[in-house]
């Protein structure tokens, strides 16, 4: 354990610098996977199952094979000869079971959109034309679509070889919980439904697979967040040595956790490249994205909260049920969302008694897995929603209620009732800062005045804890090939510039810029003197990639450590040439100076030239080490926990049910802030995604397992015109786990927003005697809660 290192945590750390790498996007010169031109490339499209559940009784590809431009039409059983299927269970969440999954369906389809037949043609248009000619005969089966009845004995088993429809269950069931409820003076209950969503990055999934049979090397230019993990997955299941697979990330057009999973169509594209010995491109279209990108949420959570006479929480009990489709998703497994619902619900508060049960079941809908926020947005909605209900029942203002019940800022280290070891949080400080930032008391006065005029405004608060930058405890120790460490190499070039290579990747968050700022601070150069290279498994050090808010906290610390050591090496080498001790020198703005006087002694370029071209100027036993590699992972706890508090101000029109979000405020504590501009916009982007999740977005399936809204016309994403301005402020409580002191922040916005919006809506509806608890909170549901239209839920 080290305290933040003040010598290396200095400017440009903390400065709101623009990202030098962003200019290419402004000139239309970003290079996404679909922009990659490869000589001789052919195109793959997939024939997908129109049924949620069916046996495949025949496939006729003759007409498709004869169509113009067609190179091959390949079925699942032919593809299966080239790979080993995968099963996504992790051993540290014991009891999971999932059927083997192949790249393409074999004799049975288990969700609408499952890929069945691949069509390869010289152009995408020809492949799409030919795909229309593929005849697949299906014998439909009863689709299992209702998670509430999935475990009933009368319900068909999605994968009969498993025996039942249970993927996994977990229980936190200590003694004393029922006694704690019995002692309570107020007990409230609510059932929350969090609808099925996806996060829809604007760039769809895509891959260019190029197999070189001469060298037996497979190169995947791949819109992925996790190049090293994907190299492992593709090599293992295509039976290739890992060093024969190279994954290169071009610019990636948004990901949000969607581009870390194993998708059969992408694996099949690589196999087809090996079979046909041609480079092949697969780019999902938007409908394919909706039916085959992983979905998230889709939870039903029953919550019960007890209070004593002083308005202090006595006990919390939750029961979570979620459905993940027919397969657990490889290689992470699909149980983490339920795990985080069961461990994070109510986690900002001191809970004297806590009980949680989670059940994860199989259905015949598209697969579900971890996306941005992973269960924590649900935990926040449920925990904050039931708390506001309890506060209302007890006649306590929601701000005051939180003041009474938050874990005190002087209570750390603190282990929650669900077993999470919090290092150091600032929840009380964050709540007070939020109350001042949003002028909570002023808003309450305005609310009361406007209600006199028939205007229904609501004020919602949400406190949240975020698990960021995971240790190996969550995946690696459960047997998943997911690295929790990241490594950074920093080297001095002859020009005096620096090159930095890291294992994390970039999807727009600004990881490149953050790594450059951290490295620049550690060495003493401008961030623009550093070129950061990412996303190429042949070039960059092995690492876990970018997910779970880990890039800044983990790769940033590796970069800091490498920069500190390279700086010491540079000063020692310069000292030899300058006949000075290294400690008397410093690097400022890229120049080696006398530390005491600031007098310039030598540029890094002069030193770089000497090191590379005139090594004889150094002592004979000196072999300059000017490429330094350091590694970092979180070790002492499962996550670097962060905290925040969010406020939301809405107006609800009781005639139409429309909700207008007037303003959102967020106070967040992710430790050391490296770039406040990038950080604030990460949080704002997450908040807007959270507002979309809360008000508009729901994937609707019918009783036959057919998705009803697979387009941006029917699945509504937030537009600029209906989003508010968002104020973001920070508290900095650095982690002592690293010298940088930074924790993660990428998911804070999407975690807190749904709970804050929910509470604001219910605050507005409270004088009308109505409340909502089924997300998204659409106008129809609000009107139903007001008794103005019948409920269809």
């Amino acid at each position, binding site marked *: 354990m080290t305290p933040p290192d003040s010598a290396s945590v200095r400017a440009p750390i903390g400065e709101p610098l623009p990202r030098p790498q962003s200019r290419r996007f402004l000139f239309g010169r970003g290079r996404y996977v679909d922009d990659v031109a490869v000589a001789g490339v052919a195109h793959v499209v997939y024939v997908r199952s129109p049924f949620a559940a069916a046996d495949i009784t025949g496939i006729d590809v003759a007409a498709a094979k004869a169509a113009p431009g067609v190179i091959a039409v390949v079925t699942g059983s032919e593809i299966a000869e080239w790979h080993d299927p995968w099963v996504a269970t992790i051993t540290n969440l014991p009891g999971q079971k999932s059927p083997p999954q192949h790249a393409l369906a074999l004799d049975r389809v288990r969700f609408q959109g499952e890929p069945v037949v691949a069509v390869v043609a010289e152009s995408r248009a020809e492949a799409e034309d030919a795909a229309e000619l593929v005849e697949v005969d299906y014998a439909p089966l009863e689709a299992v679509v209702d998670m509430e009845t999935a475990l009933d004995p009368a319900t068909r088993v999605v994968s009969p070889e498993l025996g039942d429809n249970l993927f996994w269950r977990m229980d936190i069931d200590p003694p004393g919980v029922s006694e704690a409820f019995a002692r309570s003076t107020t007990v409230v209950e609510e059932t929350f439904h969090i609808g099925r969503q996806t996060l829809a990055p604007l760039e769809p999934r895509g891959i260019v697979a190029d197999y070189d049979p001469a060298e037996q090397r497979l190169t995947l230019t791949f819109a992925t967040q996790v190049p090293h993990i994907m190299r492992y997955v593709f090599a293992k299941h295509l039976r290739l040595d890992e060093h024969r697979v190279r994954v290169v990330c071009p610019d990636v057009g948004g990901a949000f956790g969607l581009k870390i999973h194993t998708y059969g169509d992408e694996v099949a594209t690589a196999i087809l490249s090996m079979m046909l010995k041609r480079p092949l491109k697969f780019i999902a279209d938007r409908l394919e994205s909706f039916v085959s990108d992983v979905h998230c949420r889709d939870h039903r959570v029953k919550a019960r909260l007890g209070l004593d006479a002083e308005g202090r929480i006595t006990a919390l009990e939750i029961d979570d049920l979620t459905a993940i489709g027919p397969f657990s998703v490889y290689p992470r497994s699909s149980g983490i969302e339920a795990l985080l619902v069961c461990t994070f619900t109510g986690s900002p508060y001191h809970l004297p008694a806590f009980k949680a049960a989670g059940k994860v079941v199989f259905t015949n809908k598209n697969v579900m897995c971890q996306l941005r926020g992973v269960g924590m947005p649900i935990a926040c909605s449920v925990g904050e929603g039931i708390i506001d209900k309890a506060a209302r029942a007890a006649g306590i203002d929601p701000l005051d209620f939180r003041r009474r019940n938050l874990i005190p800022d002087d209570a750390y280290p603190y282990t929650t009732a669900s077993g999470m070891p919090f290092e150091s949080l600032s929840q009380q400080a964050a709540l007070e800062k939020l109350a001042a930032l949003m002028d909570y008391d002023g808003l309450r006065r305005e609310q009361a005045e406007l209600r006199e005029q028939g205007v229904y405004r609501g004020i919602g608060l949400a406190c949240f804890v975020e698990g960021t930058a995971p240790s190996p405890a969550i995946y690696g120790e459960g047997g998943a090939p997911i690295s929790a460490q990241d490594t950074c190499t920093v080297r001095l070039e002859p020009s005096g510039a620096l090159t930095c290579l890291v294992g994390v990747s970039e*999807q727009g968050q600004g990881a490149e810029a953050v790594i450059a700022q951290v490295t620049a601070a550690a060495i003493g150069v401008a961030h623009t003197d550093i070129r950061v290279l990412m996303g190429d498994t042949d070039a960059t050090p092995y690492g876990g990639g970018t997910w779970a808010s880990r890039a800044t906290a983990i790769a940033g610390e590796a970069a800091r450590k490498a920069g500190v050591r390279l700086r010491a090496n540079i000063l020692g080498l310069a000292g030899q040439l300058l006949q000075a001790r290294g400690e008397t020198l410093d690097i400022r703005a890229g120049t080696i100076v006398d530390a005491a006087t600031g007098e310039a002694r030598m540029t890094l370029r002069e030193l770089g030239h000497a090191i590379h071209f005139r090594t004889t100027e150094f002592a004979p036993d000196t072999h300059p080490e000017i490429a330094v590699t350091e590694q970092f992972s979180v070790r002492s706890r499962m996550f670097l926990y962060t905290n925040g508090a969010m406020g939301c101000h809405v107006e609800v029109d009781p005639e139409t049910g429309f909700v207008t979000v007037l303003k959102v405020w967020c106070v967040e504590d992710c430790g050391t802030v490296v770039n406040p501009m990038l950080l604030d916009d990460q949080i704002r982007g997450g908040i807007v995604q959270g507002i979309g999740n809360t008000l508009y977005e729901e994937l609707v399936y019918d009783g036959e397992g057919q998705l009803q809204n697979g387009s941006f016309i029917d699945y509504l994403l937030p537009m600029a015109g209906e*989003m508010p301005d968002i104020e973001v402020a920070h508290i900095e409580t650095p982690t002592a786990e690293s010298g940088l002191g930074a924790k993660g922040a990428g998911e804070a916005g999407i975690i807190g927003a749904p709970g804050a919006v929910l509470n604001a809506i219910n605050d507005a509806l409270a004088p009308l005697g109505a409340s909502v608890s089924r997300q998204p909170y659409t106008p129809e549901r609000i009107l139903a809660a007001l008794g103005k239209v019948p409920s269809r839920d």
Partner: protein
Amino acid sequence: MPESIPVSLTVNGRRVEATIPARLTIVDFLRDHLGLTGTHVGCAHGVCGACTVRVDGAIIRGCLTLTAQLDGGTIETIEGVADSGEIADLQEAFYARNAMQCGFCTPGMLLTAASLKARGRPVSRQEIRDHISGNLCRCTGYQAIVDAIDTVVNTDGVNADSDGGRR
């Protein structure tokens, strides 16, 4: 086989003659035939705005417009307006304010912003928000984009908001 149609276009100031399938959209023509990959396809059904290009001075959805419809037309893409210097002020404002993350929506967003600037009068933040509502951004939450456009369109530092903010 799809019918082939000869077309003559001006793309970023350059004369282009081609014989193209009748069903070819302009965004596919720009990307696949001319190598102008700055224009993106996010949904292919006219909602997301990533395919925004300018035709005869007006912005359109490249994914919903057939190339054959544009015979004789003048087409400008992000590459054209960037290289000509026309949108340099917007580019600088987007850069300084970090008004993009993944960058996929950015070319379309810039062309849409340029069409607002072309109106040549101060606008409110809500007008900016409404004007860019046909261009989805999944990363930024829009505020940085609104800020950047605000500084360019309202060059005297005064926008048309009466209350200095939203609503």
